[in-house]
């Protein structure tokens, strides 16, 4: 009797230890959400570490559904998940007390002042009245709202409204904020300010951020880590740096032949380079992508173009932009479906074969 209870205690202690060691703020395992007609999330297994993490996907990729499930607002069809170590199926209220949420759509009543509204939302998060007022003043100042906070929000600009929405998500000092398309509707300057603010939420406030967007470019500068989903499936989860690393590709574009108009210059160059043992694909209608083997690849291209008597319009090293992901990786994901389903949280940085994506673009 005594021995077994001791064993139990040891087990419990071990469980607690394991719980502490796992630092992931969000962890899902085979999370699936099916609606009568669509599957919004399909066996999504992903782990999000503290920091600024971008959740990238086109409209309808399942981002909003994922956020709803993470907040414990909608039950998952199958699979499990934890937010800040709390179970999404059973500990919804506890999660929502510790997590901030900034919705994508407008959510501000126009005839109420920002102060009044944020104080109310702080109390809705469980803060006593005095603390709610103090935190509201602090938070509104941190997001850059000053005298205007006493005016009804109906007269605010989009940028100011976005700041109030961010403030209400931060006012109860959460451990994690979920920001749904925070740059929507902002002009370029406003977008930069919002992104800088999001960065500060982590660096200065120490709050982890999960930010969704369908505009990929802006996240490259803001996030430490990117999670890409499409059609409810995980495409890739890895550090931002590995997404944008220089790839060994040269983009080549040539002019038409000055006299021989019948000559398809692109094809001619392509055939010659291929004959020289280089891997060449067509990107779009005119740009050739040549795999960079070494410095002599440059020479080979230069010589080929010169021999054909063509002009060189473009010769540049291609950086792998996040934006290319949807063109190339979607096809890979379907092929490597089982793989992403089970080991999605592992790094997907292994160099993807981009030439294939290019080839499919061309066909």
């Amino acid at each position, binding site marked *: 009797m005594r021995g077994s209870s001791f064993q139990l205690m040891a087990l419990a202690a071990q469980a607690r230890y394991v719980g502490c060691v796992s630092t992931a703020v969000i962890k899902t395992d085979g999370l699936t959400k099916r609606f009568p007609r669509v599957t919004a999330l399909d066996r999504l297994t992903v782990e999000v570490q503290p920091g600024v993490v971008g959740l990238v996907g086109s409209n309808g990729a399942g981002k909003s559904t994922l956020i709803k499930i993470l*907040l414990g*607002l909608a039950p998952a069809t199958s699979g499990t998940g934890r937010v800040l170590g709390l179970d999404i199926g059973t500990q*919804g*209220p*506890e999660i*929502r*007390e510790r*997590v901030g*949420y900034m*919705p994508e*759509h*407008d*959510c*501000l*009543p*126009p*005839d*109420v002042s920002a102060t*009044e509204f944020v104080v*109310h*939302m702080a*109390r*809705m*998060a*469980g*803060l*006593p009245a005095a*603390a709610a007022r103090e*935190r509201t003043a*602090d938070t509104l100042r*941190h997001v850059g709202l000053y005298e205007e906070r006493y005016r*009804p929000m109906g007269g605010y600009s989009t940028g100011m409204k976005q700041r109030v929405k961010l403030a*209400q998500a931060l006012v*109860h*000092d959460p451990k994690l904020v979920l920001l749904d398309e925070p740059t929507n509707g902002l002009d370029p300057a406003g977008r930069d300010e919002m992104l800088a603010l999001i960065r500060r939420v982590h660096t*200065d*406030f*120490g709050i982890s951020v999960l930010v969704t967007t369908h505009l990929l470019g802006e996240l490259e500068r803001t996030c430490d880590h990117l999670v890409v989903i499409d059609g409810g499936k995980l495409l890739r989860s890895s550090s931002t740096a590995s997404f944008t690393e220089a790839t060994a590709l040269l983009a080549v574009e040539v002019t038409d032949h000055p006299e021989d108009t019948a000559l398809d210059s692109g094809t001619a160059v392509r055939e010659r380079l291929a004959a020289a043992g280089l891997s060449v694909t067509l990107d779009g209608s005119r740009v050739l992508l040549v795999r960079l083997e070494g410095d002599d690849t440059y020479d080979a291209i230069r010589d080929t173009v010169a021999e054909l008597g063509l002009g060189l319009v473009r010769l540049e090293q291609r950086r792998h932009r996040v934006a290319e992901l949807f063109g190339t990786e979607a096809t890979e994901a379907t092929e490597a479906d089982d793989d992403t389903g089970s080991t999605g949280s592992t790094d997907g940085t292994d160099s993807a074969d981009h030439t294939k994506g290019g080839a499919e673009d061309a066909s």
Partner: protein
Amino acid sequence: MPPETRPADTGVIHDIGYRGYAGPRLGRAYATRSLFTQSLRAAYGLGRSGKSKVLPMLVLGVLTVPAVIMVAIALATHRSELPLDYPRYLSAFGLIVSIFLASQAPVLLSRDLRYHTVPLYFSRPITRGDYVRAKFAAMVSAQFLLMAVPLLVLYIGALLGRLDFGHNTGHFLFGLVTALLYALVPTSVALVIAAATPRRGFGVAGIMGYLAISTVVVAILTRIGTGIELTVPDSAQWAALLSPNDLVESLTNQLFDVGGGGDRLHAPGAFGVAVFIAAVIAMVSGSYGLLLRRYSSV
């Protein structure tokens, strides 16, 4: 540390950096109470723009001033009774109470739908059931307060005028029960209508329309049932089941033996009282159930 402790003449704003919050988090029940308080205040326009205070305060005034006048008359003419009994006062001014309900129920529910604040609430500790509970309780309390204030004026006036203490206390309590029923039955139906539309105007029109039309229908049916008789026969009294306001009036008239005149509505007999009470319960709990269902999918 309050900022006043710093020298005020430096003119420098010190950025004290981000401070976390280590204080208590009071959880779901507290958040639900906060939503209740905020909604109750909002029903009277408090915490909102000056414009939104006009109508609720006007209605409260229109409902209370006659009570003050009645008390003044009763005191001046040394009458032994108030001109209008407590429950009767509420029936007489039913239209004013309905106007308050029709205008303010959408303030509590339609606005949150219109401005998409509802999902924001559900991202906080409260559940959907908590939201419905807080809003329901807030509107019922707002309605009850609206009616309790003039009743209190009448009662205090009666005591000051040294009218019969026992009679007045008893009927004041009858009045409060009547007020509670008025605050429950029409209100619950009105909240269902308000929750159905994000447009405040539609909500107001829908509630006012429902309350007015159902009352007119009851009036027509009882008139047909009465025919050439001088008083409404018991068989025609059942029509009152169709209208929330008439249902409450009939039930309380019978329960507290108040009201008079040929067109007096009352629940017919003991069986009638039982049926009318059942109707009250069905209407309130049914509406509450509909509200829960309405918000389960938001």
